[in-house]
């Protein structure tokens, strides 16, 4: 399972990096979304893989998944959404002001 997760994270990162190296705003936004998936998953698995032990205190249970990375990731997801929204609106603004959607604001 660990290898599978490593592979998934590697794929997400590779896709994200390839996309942010594109020259148009929309793929770059997609790439950033990929990278935030990757980062969020990365943070989560820093608490190691635990199956079926959500960090919700119940009587008689002593073994839980690490709650700390989860708390970090939860806000990171929401902030990530705000960031995506900000960047996409920025690209709209650039489109309106410059008449094209190149990341450097020009056609090549």
């Amino acid at each position, binding site marked *: *399972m*660990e*290898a*599978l*997760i*490593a*592979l*998934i*994270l*590697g*794929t*997400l*990162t*590779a*896709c994200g*990096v*390839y*996309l942010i*190296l594109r*020259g148009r705003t*929309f*793929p770059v936004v*997609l790439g950033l*979304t*990929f990278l935030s998936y990757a980062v*969020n*998953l990365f943070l*989560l*698995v820093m*608490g*190691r*893989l*635990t*199956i079926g*032990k*959500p*960090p*919700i*205190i*119940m009587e008689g249970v002593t073994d*839980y*998944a690490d*709650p700390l990375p*989860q*708390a970090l*990731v*939860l*806000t990171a*997801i929401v*902030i*990530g*959404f*705000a960031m995506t*929204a*900000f960047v*996409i609106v920025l690209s*709209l603004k650039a*489109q*309106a002001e410059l008449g094209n959607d190149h990341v450097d604001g020009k056609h*090549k």
Partner: protein
Amino acid sequence: MNLLLIALTPFIGAIFVAVISRLGRLHAAWAAGAVTLLSLILLLPLAVDTFAGQTLVQRLSWIPTVGLDVAFRLDGLALLFALLILGIGLLIILYARYYLSERDDMGRFYAYLLLFMGSMLGIALSENIIQLLIFWELTSLSSFLLISYWQHRHESRSGARMALAVTGGGGLALLGGFLLLGEIVGSYDLTVILASGDIIRAHPFYLPMLILVLLGAFTKSAQFPFHFWLPNAMAAPTPVSAYLHSATMVKAGVFLLARLFPALSGTPEWFWLVSTTGLATLLIAALIAFFKHDLKGLLAYSTISHLGLITLLFGIGTPLAAVAGVFHIINHAIFKASLFMAAGIIDHETGTRDMRRLRGLWHFMPHTALLATVAAASMAGVPLFNGFLSKEMFFTETLYGFDYSWGWLLPAGATLAGIFAVAYSLRFIHNVFFNGIPVDLPKTPHEPPRWMKVPVEVLVALCLLVGIFPVLTVEPILSLAAASVLQGPVPEYNLAIWHGFNTALWMSVIALVGGGLVYFRRHLIFRLHEQLSDRWEFKKGYNQLIEKLFRFSTVVTRLLDTHSLQRMLFVFMLFIMALGVSGFIAGDALLTGDRALLPVNGVSLLVALMLMIASIGTVFLHQQRLVALILLGAVGLGVVLIFVKFSAPDLALTQLSVEVVTIVLLLLALYFLPQYSPAESSKLLKCRDAVVAIAAGGGVAALVWAVLTRPQQTIADYFLANSVTGGGGANVVNVILVDFRGYDTLGEITVLALAGLGIYAMLDQLQLIGSNRDVEGRLWNRDMHPVIMATFTRLLLPLALLVSVYILLRGHNMPGGGFIAGLITAAALIMQYLANGVAWTQQRLPANVHSVIGYGLLIAVLTGLASWLFGYPFLTSTFSHLHWPLVGEFELASAMAFDLGVYLVVVGATLLIIINLGLMHSRSPHSGARKPIRKWKH
């Protein structure tokens, strides 16, 4: 918490004044006066205890672990300053009401003035020095606003910027000094610092700390060589100058010297640094003041000179010198405020401040002339006026300098400065009010409105009362303030006017006679000055420095910025990978650790494959944007499943709802963007990027593998153990968010709110035309709101809202909480907008999302503040169990109120973003098939 209230009243009042000024110009003046009076009334009952010799310290726990508290202190010195700030502030408010013209926005003026007043009160009343620094910086900021009040004038803007740069820079040094001081003493509390003078003076950090603190004080008090900002700040309206340069802004620096006097003084370093700076400032500024032709310029330099005098007194460091320093702070505040006001009246009534044009005004405004003459006599140190008393004490103290080898310079310099002080005071009076009749004035001068003179009269009366009956008037507050400066017994001093024929008296006589001679022989000296002028142009040096700084930053930017995001990101990626690889090679750890691995099952494998295929598919099809977006949604759902699998139900719920909102958002945006990405990268470039991407992915995979195969040491045991007992919730993730780390969450929702507002600002007035055809060139469906969908979403809304309320309420114990509930609510409402149209929905949902965000933040902050009411640190939570009818046992935690704030901010920010994008659609003119299809070259 009276002291907190006193300092906060002007801040709250500023908002009040700004709002009420819309009802009428003069309302602002009345409101500002009322606010100041309220603060004063709150202060007076506390003053009784202070006069009884008590030091009042009030504190609220803020971040106790790093020694930061909101702590206020009221002792003699603080009381004296608070009285000066509020008392003179009140007079300034009255004066400004007549000074400002019809064109000036009174609301803005008084709001800025109150902000500044609150900041000054904060400095005077702070117990914690970090808090003091915050107020210190606030005075820099609010004085910037005040000095640049006439924004249309170039000199206002540049003067304000210069003041901000110099005092702000000093504030930075002061921060360093305070942090060192805190390190030395082990506390940021003044009570502790003032009691540990011996430890401080013996510490190896003493000298660097002293230099940094003094830099802060000297820049604020316009000491040489940082004095140049003050004359340039004269571009402010005169009431501002009268306030900032008499009782407040510049006095903050000498206040700091007085405040830290017991802790820092008494060493040779202190003596040399402080007294040399003070003496240089005293002399140089007195000379320059005499040569200024501008009335306010003269007063500005005389202010610098008098601040130098006070600094010199604290530098001399004897207890009596400190008493004299405090006394001169009072006297200078009184006579300088009245002189500035008089200068403002002259400017107001004649239209000029140039002393080469002003003369003989006695005939036109005898009353004002009389008032100004008294104040100027006080400034010159003429007997029977208050300035004389403190100047006599000053002269006496300079004689102490004889103990040092160069010490004769002190009394000599003091006398010389005294001569010029008399000369420039005489010039202020004789040149303006006598000396012939005025020629060529812009206006025919006359007396100002009755009430404009009242503040000056009050101050001038004080000059006389203090000067003639010092023991009856000023003695109690002076000895009280002096006691808290010295933190010990006040030495014997005599406030009598007549001390007999001693050295100090002869110095005074020399100053008076010499000053008269200098003034009446001024033509000779002026000629000399014209030949030597431009030598002391510090402003030029400052401008050159700023220019160089700008040029340097341009060079650096050009060096690093290649004007291509792609190239820069490429270099960035390479660099990160180089870092990672070198780190791995440098260490000798194995890639694989020894933790037992989990087996893979079929379902997981399937999901993983699906996720990876969708990801790679997104990349391959990214030029077809809509398809790529759909595939991205599939990737997001795969991520949700991973969260579910690895025991993170909260994350799964959050990601799921964020996914929905994100895809809607990107779809909305895509409408306005080209539907295709043109293929513009060459094959080679694509291969290069692919290699970099695969290398980066491989690096991350290796890193994840290395971490996951190693055992973990968690730091979360504390949270798991204390979640139920301490936080009152079983869902540890939620308890961490709203309780243990509530502060972080507060920051995060603030960021979210700001992002929402930023997006709103960007979308405001934005006009974009979307395509009216789809990718294949077909027209969009005209039926924008299909009936079945519209009806179903309406039916679904209450259910969805119910679910979100349920999720919100159970969040403390089960997966859920404010973030998730907020997103669900937002998603439910967004669906209404999508299905029924923006206009239809907005009619039925009139709530203003801006205020939803505002209320959310307010609730979150108030929950935090509420814990102060019960004497706990900020954001401490509490909980109890209630038995509700029907519902049964129900737990109520204060953290849930905080979660409600989170909920509102999330709903508000999400809706703000989506609705405004949606509104752009309804603004966009997209009807008619006649318009040409926008085609993008492939």
